[in-house]
Structures are given as C-alpha cells and as structure tokens.
C-alpha cells in the first residue's frame, strides 16, 4: 500500500454507498459454510451438564492441563517473537541470495501435518537422533517426553504464523521510513529500535495472538514428540483427547475452556488478521 495520496498518511474515506451486491445463488453455500463452523460449537454447548460443570472444570486433571497449556503456550509465543521476529526482518529486508528458498522453508510447518512435524523433531532430538544423541552424551540433556519438548513442538508449529505475519507487514510498509531515518543520521540499530519496531507494533499484536492461539491448540506434534504424560506434557488438547475415551462430560467441560479462551482471544485482542484486515 502506498501511504496516502494527497494528505500524508490518511486513508481514503470508506464509502458505504459503493457496496457490491452479492449474487443470490452464493447466499446458500455461504449459510452452509457458517453453519458448518458455528453449529458444532453450539452442539458442544448443548452436551454440557450444568450441574456437574463446576466440579469437572476444577478437577485436578483439568486444572493441571490448563496450567501446563497456558505456561507452555506463553513460552513458545515468547520464543517465537525472540527468534521469529529477527527472521521476519531478515526475510523482508536483507538481499541475501536464496532468500526465496528460505521463505518457502519457513512455510513448511504451516502445510505439514503436525504429526509429521512431531516425528521430524523426534528423529532430530530423540536419543538416537543426530542432535539429540549429542545433547544426551555431551550435556546430559534429554528433550523428548519433557515439558521442553512440548514448548519445542508448539514453537515449531506456531512460529511460522508470526514470521509470515510480521514479514508481510514489513514488506507492505516498505523501507521508506527506515531510509528517512538513515538520512537523519540514524544507524541500523537505532533505526530498528526507534523506527522499525514502533511501526511494527500493531502487526506484532495480531501476529502474537494468532501464534498463541495456534500454540494453545497444538496436538499432533506434541503427542508424537512429547507424549501425553500427566502434569508434564499433557496439555489441554491432549487431556481432552485422553479423557474423551472414558468420561465424555469431563472432555466436553475441558473443551469449553478452550472455546472460552478462543472467544477471549477474538473478542478482546481482536487480531486484525482475523478480522480480514492486514
């Protein structure tokens, strides 16, 4: 987007009168699509037994899973920012050869089934894996089936959301503000702190929310790489899956927790990417 035409950075006024009519035959599939998204969640709510709900929600099993989920998701979100943020900047601004290949590789976890990602992590960091063997023998560190493994699995799956979001916003904004800062005598580090970062804050907010939500819902990679050990690796999604086999009501109650967290994320944080604006 080019900022403004005549008046600096103002957007052109949105004109309500210029709305385009939606062709009638498209309304039916649109309604079906909406039903497909909303009805299952509503169905879940009807399955709730209000009398047992407080007990189920405060069961040690549910509380442990919620606690673990929130902790690991926050850590993997922080890890995504610390590592993925710089990666986004490199992808958007540097002119290294082969950058297009790197950009495609970053997208890999987005399209790869999480289970495959979990297997890949296991064969890299497992006891017999290339890196895992080294860590075990030299540092005495074991990663699979630990809380660290949960964090790694979540970061693997969720970080690309942050990288893609930030990189897109950096590329749309262009480097023009950074160039102005350079002409004002600001070196690369000062420009990053005083120009790039403040300009990136709005996009960072929405990318963070998406990354956190994705980490919170992670299942496939976690169960493959970290297993489902109560208290250390059994996050909320894993707990729901395990509990559903024996106590459906308890599983539904835990699902309700995730639904509530998701709604909070959408309503309170209101990520722009979710609203269809970038």
């Amino acid at each position, binding site marked *: 987007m080019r900022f403004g035409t005549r008046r*600096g950075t103002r957007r052109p006024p949105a004109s309500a009168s210029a709305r385009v009519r939606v062709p009638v035959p498209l309304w039916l599939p649109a309604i079906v699509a909406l039903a497909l998204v909303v009805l299952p969640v509503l169905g879940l709510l009807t399955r709730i037994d209000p009398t047992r709900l407080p007990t189920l929600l405060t069961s040690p099993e549910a509380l442990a899973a919620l606690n673990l989920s929130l902790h690991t998701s926050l850590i993997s979100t922080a890890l995504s920012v610390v590592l993925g943020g710089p990666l986004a900047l490199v992808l958007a601004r540097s002119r290294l050869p082969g950058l297009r290949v790197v950009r495609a590789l970053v997208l890999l976890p987005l399209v790869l089934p999480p289970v495959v990602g979990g297997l890949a992590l296991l064969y890299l960091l497992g006891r017999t894996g290339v890196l895992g063997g080294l860590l075990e023998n030299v540092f005495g560190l074991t990663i699979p089936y630990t809380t660290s493994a949960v964090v790694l699995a979540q970061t693997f799956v969720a970080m690309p959301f942050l990288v893609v979001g930030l990189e897109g916003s950096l590329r749309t904004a262009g480097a023009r503000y950074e160039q102005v800062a350079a*002409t*004002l005598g600001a070196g690369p580090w000062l420009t990053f702190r005083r120009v790039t970062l403040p300009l990136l804050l709005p996009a960072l907010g929405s990318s963070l929310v998406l990354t956190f939500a994705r980490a919170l819902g992670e299942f496939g990679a976690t169960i493959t790489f970290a297993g489902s050990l109560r208290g250390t690796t059994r996050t909320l999604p894993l707990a729901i899956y395990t509990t559903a086999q024996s106590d459906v009501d308890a599983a539904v109650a835990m699902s309700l927790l995730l639904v509530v967290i998701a709604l909070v994320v959408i309503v309170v944080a209101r990520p722009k990417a979710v609203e269809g604006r970038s």
Partner: protein
Amino acid sequence: MSAARLRAGITLRRAAFTLEVAFAVEPGEVLAIVGPNGAGKSTVLSALSGLVEPDHGSIELGDHRWFDAERAVSVATHRRGVGLLAQQPLLFPYLSALDNVAFGPRAGGVRKAAARARAHAWLEEVGAAELAARRPGGLSGGQAQRVALARALAADPDLLLLDEPLAALDVDAAPDMRGLLHRVLRGQRRPTVLVTHDVLDAVVLADRVLVLSEGGAVEQGVTREVLARPRTAFTARIAGLNLVGGTGGDSAVLAGDVAISGRVVEPIERDRPAAAVFAPSAVAVHRQPPHGSPRNAVRVRLTGLEPRGEDVVRLRAATRTFEAVLAADVTPAAAAELSLAVDDEVWFVVKATEVAIHPASDG
C-alpha cells in the same frame, strides 16, 4: 554548518536505461534536475544519499569521498549527512511533530531537552510552531510537508536533497510551500539538489538547471538561460509556460522597459529577481497595439507557427524588449483571419489576472 562543494559523476545501469550524469553544486547553490518521468531523476538522488550504488564513478562532498566505484568506497547513508525531503512527508506516525523534528538531533547524540529546543526553533522557522504537539495523522498535506522540511534541516545536513517536494500538495498548499523553500534555500550555505517535473519549481528555487532525458543530461546551465532559450526541443516542451524574468516591481515584473503585472503568488521583493509566468493559451494576438485596457502588451516578432492538433496553432515569438521566447496558442481560424506569418510584427496581449508573479532564484 559546513559549506562544501558537491561533485558527482556517476553511471548506473538499469534494465530500462543507463543513467550517466556529471555535475557539481557549489555551497549555497541549488541545482534543479528536471525531466520526464522515468528519466532517472530520483535515481540520481538515491545515489547521492547512498540508497543505491552506482556502477561507475564517484561522489564527493568537499574533502569527503562518499562513493568511489574504482576504490570500492561507499559511505553508508547515515554517515553521509544528507537531508532528504521527498514527495510524501513520511513523518513517523507514532511521534509528535516536535519529536519527528528532534529525531535527527537525537540520532546525532544531542540530549533530549536540547534536541527538543532545536526542534522548536526549526518548527518556528518553517511556520509550524503551533503544530508541535500534533501527531502526523492530524496534519494536512501542507502542514506535514513543512514539518518534514524542519525535520530534514534540524539534522543539519551537509547536502540537502529535495525529491519532488511539492508534487503531492494540492494547489492551495503548493505556493506556500514553494515560498517557504525559496526563503529557506536562499538563506543557507549548503549545496542543494532539487528534482522536479514542474518548471515553476526550478524557476523559483534553482540557480542552475540540469535537464535529464533518457538517462543523460541534455542541457545544463543557469536556470533562466536554459528555460528562456531552450536549445533542445525537449527543454522547450517541458518549459511549456511563458516565463519572463526580471526584477520585482509593484505587483509586477520589470523586464527591459516593460512591466508585466499579474497576481503575486508568493511574496516578491522590490529589485530582487522575480518571474512572470503565464500559459500560451492566455495570450491574445493583435495586429494593432491595444489601448485603454489594464492588460499587458508586448511587441514581438513571430519566429514560428506550428499546428498542434485540430484546433490550436502554437505561435512562437521573440522580442527585443527582453530576453525570452514567448508562445501563444490561437485557433486556426484566428491565425487565418490575422493572416499570420513568420517574421510578422504583432502584439501579444495577456490579462493581468492570467499572469502569476513569483520570486525567482538569483540564477
């Protein structure tokens, strides 16, 4: 403020064209680079500021060698000390106008309070002191551009670059900003390079003009000489408007023994360089001198008649009164009725309301 001379001779290869240009700008001098879109005007500025690297050549400011392709020297943009005012103000949207202007001094290591004091002084200088606390989102285009100029100058650059600084402003804001630039540029000792597609900007602001076309300089010289006696068809085309240079009078420009009166667009000073500008379509052609009307009349000798499309004949004429080539657009019917021919002596008449009076650079 240092006062060093800018010297540049650069070659840049691009897919569409090769840009090859050499020029020097003295301290306190303003060089305007004019030319059509895609001629490489802005690329020259990018090379001067260090945002692109030429393939050959060198750029020096005084004793400082900023770029030398042969010796692999290329000083980073932030160490060159170039101030840039572009078409878009590009004010940092999250900072107040004051903090935008203070950005340069802060980057240069000045303490916060001192930087703000300097920023205040510069906002005052560009007539935007009352905007200090405002965010860029709440400024009009003209206001934002004033703040952007203050920001560029507050960093105390050794070289000032102006890249189409008036092109994005609306017709009300552009004359104000042009007048401000005229005042600021005349009072400084650093060299300035201005890129513009508007000849008026060059007339008002520049001492010398470099005409760039298809990657090369087709003409270079003192503004008034280049525009008054265009040596290439291209320069004549971009000149487009009639331009009579002289000295400032009472709502008029004194040129030779004629006074051309008009609307004073930007304040002029008596006996300082000024220019009268009017469109060829505003000129009426008479065989006899008009009398008893408040109109400007100049006796001229026709040097050319060229049809322009279906319903316009462009007349070119010279006058002995002052040094300028004038143009007039008339209908083919009018040209026939007056039976105009080359070497005819006629009167070019233009209403004062159709003439714009501007201050001019000393060049």
